[in-house]
């Protein structure tokens, strides 16, 4: 009988595998080409997939790199969405400044919740972040004068001007490439971070927290840094989602947005950044097409989760790279 006593649940692939980066390049170029080809319906699905991919990568920084299994990422996702809406509705600033406002929301929320929860050990950390989710979700539903509650707030977008050109997000293809640029940027930034010394420290904390501490690293500081980076990119994803729907409601704080990233990352593969995209694509395509002919498609999805976890605890990318 194998009983794992270690705190490491899922240890991602040990060696630096290049598979995820090949996959990322393939994925990005495929989405660039698809941007010119896709019809309207499929394009909205593709936009959704790209936005969720940013959230999945952001979550991977927290769970995959530093082994912090947060259930509070809906706080940052919802915070980002409301950052955009508040910026446009209340502050009356343009789309890009509002996006910065939503990143700022994500930063502040992640810093405040992180300072309180990052210190705690595993199970307590999970529950503490889950409590933060619950507090923010309840407050968002209660404070209807600010958030619009379940009905939400809708906004209209002014065209973005970049000096040399003006474009409007109401055009779907423009929206597609707008999101695409942010996906590429996020991947580039996070991948650079993963390759840099900072990323190596994160991984050393994941592999053996005590040893990293003995080596003189400030564990709390690094874990908090990973948590905040994760929160900021989750907020970016939430902001882009609100921009695409031109709407935000208390539902953006719901538990769905906490649990989905965990599922994406575990299906695709932890600690690989681009691996989580496979989880996003699988789940979104599945939801989009299967839900059309069977209402209870989540049953199949539950079975798929169980099968994937049974075959490989490291997700699809981990399985392809040879680890089990």
């Amino acid at each position: 009988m194998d009983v794992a006593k270690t705190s490491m649940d899922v240890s991602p692939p040990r060696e630096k595998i290049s598979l995820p980066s090949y996959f990322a390049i393939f994925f990005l170029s495929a989405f660039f080409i698809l941007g010119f080809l896709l019809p309207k319906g499929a394009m909205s699905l593709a936009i959704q997939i790209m936005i969720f991919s940013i959230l999945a990568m952001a979550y991977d920084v927290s769970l995959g790199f530093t082994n912090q299994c947060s259930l509070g990422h809906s706080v940052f996702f919802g915070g980002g969405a409301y950052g955009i809406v508040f910026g446009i509705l209340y502050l009356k600033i343009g789309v890009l400044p509002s996006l910065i406002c939503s990143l700022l929301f994500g930063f502040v929320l992640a810093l405040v919740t992180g300072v309180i929860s990052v210190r705690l050990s595993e199970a307590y950390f999970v529950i503490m972040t889950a409590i933060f989710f619950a507090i923010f979700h309840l407050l968002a539903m209660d404070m209807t004068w600010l958030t619009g509650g379940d009905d939400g707030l809708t906004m209209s977008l002014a065209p973005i001007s970049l000096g040399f050109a003006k474009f409007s997000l109401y055009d779907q293809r423009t929206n597609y490439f707008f999101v695409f640029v942010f996906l590429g940027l996020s991947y580039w930034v996070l991948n650079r971070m993963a390759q840099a010394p900072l990323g190596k420290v994160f991984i050393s904390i994941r592999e053996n927290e005590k040893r990293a501490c003995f080596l003189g690293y400030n564990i709390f500081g690094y874990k908090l840094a990973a948590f905040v980076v994760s929160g900021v990119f989750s907020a970016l994803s939430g902001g882009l989602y609100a921009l695409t729907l031109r709407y935000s409601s208390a539902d953006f704080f719901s538990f769905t947005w906490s649990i989905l990233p965990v599922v994406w990352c575990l299906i695709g593969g932890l600690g690989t950044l681009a691996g989580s995209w496979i989880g996003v694509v699988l789940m979104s395509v599945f939801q989009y097409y299967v839900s059309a002919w069977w209402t209870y498609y989540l049953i199949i999805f539950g079975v798929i989760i169980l099968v994937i976890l049974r075959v490989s605890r490291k997700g699809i990318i981990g399985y392809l790279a040879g680890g089990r």
Partner: protein
Amino acid sequence: MPETASTVLFLLINGLIWGLIVALIALGLSLIFGVMGIVNMAHGDIYMAGAVIAFYVTSLTGDFWLSLLAVPVIVIILAAPLERFILRPYEGYHSTSMIATVGISFIIQQIALGTYGGIPKKIMNPWPVSFNLLGVDYPGYRLLVGAISLLILSALWLLLYKTSYGIKVRASMQDRDMANAMGINVNQILVTTFVLGGVLAAMGGTLAAPINQVFYLMGNDIVLLCFIVVIVGGLGSLKGTFIAALSLCALEGVMASFLSPIQARAAIFVIMVVVLMRRPQGLFKE
């Protein structure tokens, strides 16, 4: 002001009785986590399944009390193979087991949605009597629920602390490898613990069904509350879980007298954040 005093008393008793039901469910969760190392996200859905089965038994036979017998039997039949054939590989891996049970939770919810439907329904109050408690008419069924919960809880206490089975369960909770080495059949303990935890949750659902509405997503609200109760009480401390469930629910009940229900719930969570910051190991654990 006697009027406010009696309102507060009413809400306090409501909170305490709800706390007893939550204690049932949370103790099941605590046992499953402590013995098996599974973060059971599907626990709330077993609670929901208990309520749905009670609904069907009541509408088929016209007798609510029969469901108190039928629910444990059905849950035992369903939960034992679930543990043995599906959950066994994930035991001891916290985050993997969490995702696996999320998958199971999807499956249970969608089956309930497909068979029972998405509209909340109510079970008729099976004991429409009310007692006069210090000038407030208090529904008799709620008091009865409190009594039944207390009965189940004391039976659980006897089982865990006064029988040889209980010693084996507690031994597996402390150190599973060692218990195995001492000749305890740990596999048997795993199956029975999961079934026991499932039955506790389902009984909570059955008892709560005539008080709350029966809805296929009703488990989602309860599962987080139960996790919080388990953590605040201290992981693996059954006494702590019991005390935490009662005190948190009573506190929420009292706070509901001057805050809106949503604000009362949020206030409880804020209190818990403060508690966990001061005592990260839980209130009742040395």
